[in-house]
């Protein structure tokens, strides 16, 4: 799978990132490099440090040490510029239930110096029929598409999606996959976290698996699948001829439960 694109260069470069909370080290010396135009997946069990990493990259959390370079800029010096260039969807933002879809997007649009047309964004996320519905009346999938629309309205170069399809029904998930694939086809860079291996396999050009704040594997989904010897998998997996990304994930991060 091609990882170098027409506008190559680094969209996100993270080196030696460290972040500790009072009781736990969330990110422990992480290095990442996301190429412009690629869809990059960040996988890992609960508590692996994915959200912390993403929030540091989004400028929402300060890092303890290490450096983050987003689109060639740094949060310490270019925060205002960077916020104009990024599209963000957080894990569990609840948008105001009293506002309509239109009003919500008009609000987000108003924050950006150069913003996309609301109607166009609404069509893109297929919420045309819900334009004047209150957010409180939307289904889970529709709310999530609205959250993605809020990330799109500023015409971002780089989009961060933190578990965009968690808790959605299969139809809504596929609709979002279409949407994400379309961003990528428009030449935007995407960084997403997910628990669904199928999602990563379908959408991501490259995947990093992190655990305990370290990166433990990096490559295209195919490369990672091929790195596992199927015959070593515990039952019932050995019946397969090639490993799935989920096999890789479980083989690397172990089988014990990681409850948040």
């Amino acid at each position: 799978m091609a990882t170098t694109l027409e506008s190559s260069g680094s969209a996100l470069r993270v080196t030696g990132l460290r972040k500790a909370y009072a009781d736990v080290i969330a990110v422990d010396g992480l290095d990442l490099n996301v190429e412009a135009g690629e869809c990059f997946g960040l996988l890992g069990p609960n508590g692996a440090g994915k959200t912390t990493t993403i929030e540091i990259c989004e400028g929402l959390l300060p890092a303890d040490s290490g450096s983050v370079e987003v689109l060639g800029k740094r949060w310490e010096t270019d925060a205002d510029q960077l916020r104009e260039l990024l599209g963000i969807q957080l894990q569990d933002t609840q948008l105001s239930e009293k506002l309509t879809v239109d009003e919500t997007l008009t609000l987000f649009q108003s924050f950006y110096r150069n913003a996309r047309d609301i109607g166009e964004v609404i069509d893109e996320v297929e919420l045309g029929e819900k334009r004047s519905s209150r957010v409180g009346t939307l289904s889970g999938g529709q709310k999530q598409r609205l959250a993605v629309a809020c990330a799109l309205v500023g015409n971002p170069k780089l989009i961060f999606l933190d578990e965009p399809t968690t808790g959605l029904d299969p139809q809504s998930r596929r609709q979002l996959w279409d949407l994400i694939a379309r961003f990528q086809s428009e030449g935007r860079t995407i960084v997403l976290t997910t628990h669904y291996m199928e999602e990563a396999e379908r959408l991501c050009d490259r995947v990093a698996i992190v655990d305990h704040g370290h990166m433990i594997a990096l490559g295209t989904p195919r490369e990672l699948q091929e790195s596992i010897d199927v015959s070593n998998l515990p039952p019932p997996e050995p019946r397969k001829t090639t490993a799935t990304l989920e096999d890789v994930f479980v083989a690397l991060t172990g089988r014990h439960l990681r409850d948040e």
Partner: protein
Amino acid sequence: MNDSPPEVSERSEYSPVLRPAVAGRSPDTTKTLSRRDRGFKRSSMVQLTLVRFREFIREPEAVFWTFIFPILLAAGLGIAFRQRGPDKLQVGVVANQNSAPLIQSLRKDSTLVVQSFDDSAAAKALRTGRITLLVRPTPQRDSVLYVYDRQRSEANNARVMVDRAVQVGAGRVDRVHSTDTFVTEPGSRYIDFLIPGLLGMNLMGSSIWGLGFTIVTARSKKLLKRLMATPMSRSQYLASFLASRLIFLILEIVTLLGFGHWAFGVPLRGSLATLLLICLLAALSFGGLGLLSASRARTTEAVSGIMNFIMLPMWIFSGVFFSSANFPHAVQPFIKLLPLTAVNDALRLNMLEGSSLAAVTPQLGVIIVWGILTFFAALKLFRWR
């Protein structure tokens, strides 16, 4: 979409191979609208203020507590404590052979309600307070005995009224002719005291709740964090609360004072511009307290506790329902320094006494100092995430 094609073909549909075909819509070439294209109504300050406005009017409970509840409270208390004129005096007469002419003379006085009793019933009526004074005719036609409790002022009053009726009935002629002119003074009734207090309480409540609750809700829903990830100006976010407060402020003043004026004739003796200035400064100053309550709290439960902790003492001490002068002399300086006391005092001086702007400057000073201190403390402590 639902009858998914085999995995391989769907994967290839999304593969980067397709990209150059639609590369015409890259972020650099997608059509965008600049701030100027979008116009004033779509500016972030207007949009943020509109959001505050919409969130408020789409919350029926908030509308009730801000606009309807104060009016119900004013109406209820105004009716309960209205002045009904002097009460009629209940007097009893012991029935015997001389009581008939006596009762007749007493009935001529419209302030007296006269009943006749036999001996034991009369004693019981006096004891239980059904009558304030008992008239006992004596066997001699030219003398009468009054039985009453001289500690009770209305009994003394009854003594004077009854005796006058008895004397006039027996033929006394007054030497001096007297006439009465009655005056009623709006401004001295309970409702006149109450309405400015309710206005002050309402200004405090809606500023503190309006900021405190909304901000903490946004924080607990991670909406505040989401907004922080946009280029939104933080000061505009906070300013939008004040802007929407000012819009509702006018409505609050007009509904409550309009009601008081229309239903009870509560006077508005001072300048309306000064009244508006007092309300404006009060709303902004209490906004600072609201912001301070919201600066750290992560849950709406926590902020509700903080806000009640701030407001409850002022409901009691600041002279909303009864004068703060009822509290001991030693604590008066502290009561005077509470922001709601200053607001209520200033409103009463303006509305009831028609005092000038200069006369309410000490109160305005207290209000402004509270506003400045709380805003700076809030900005220092405020947690955006």
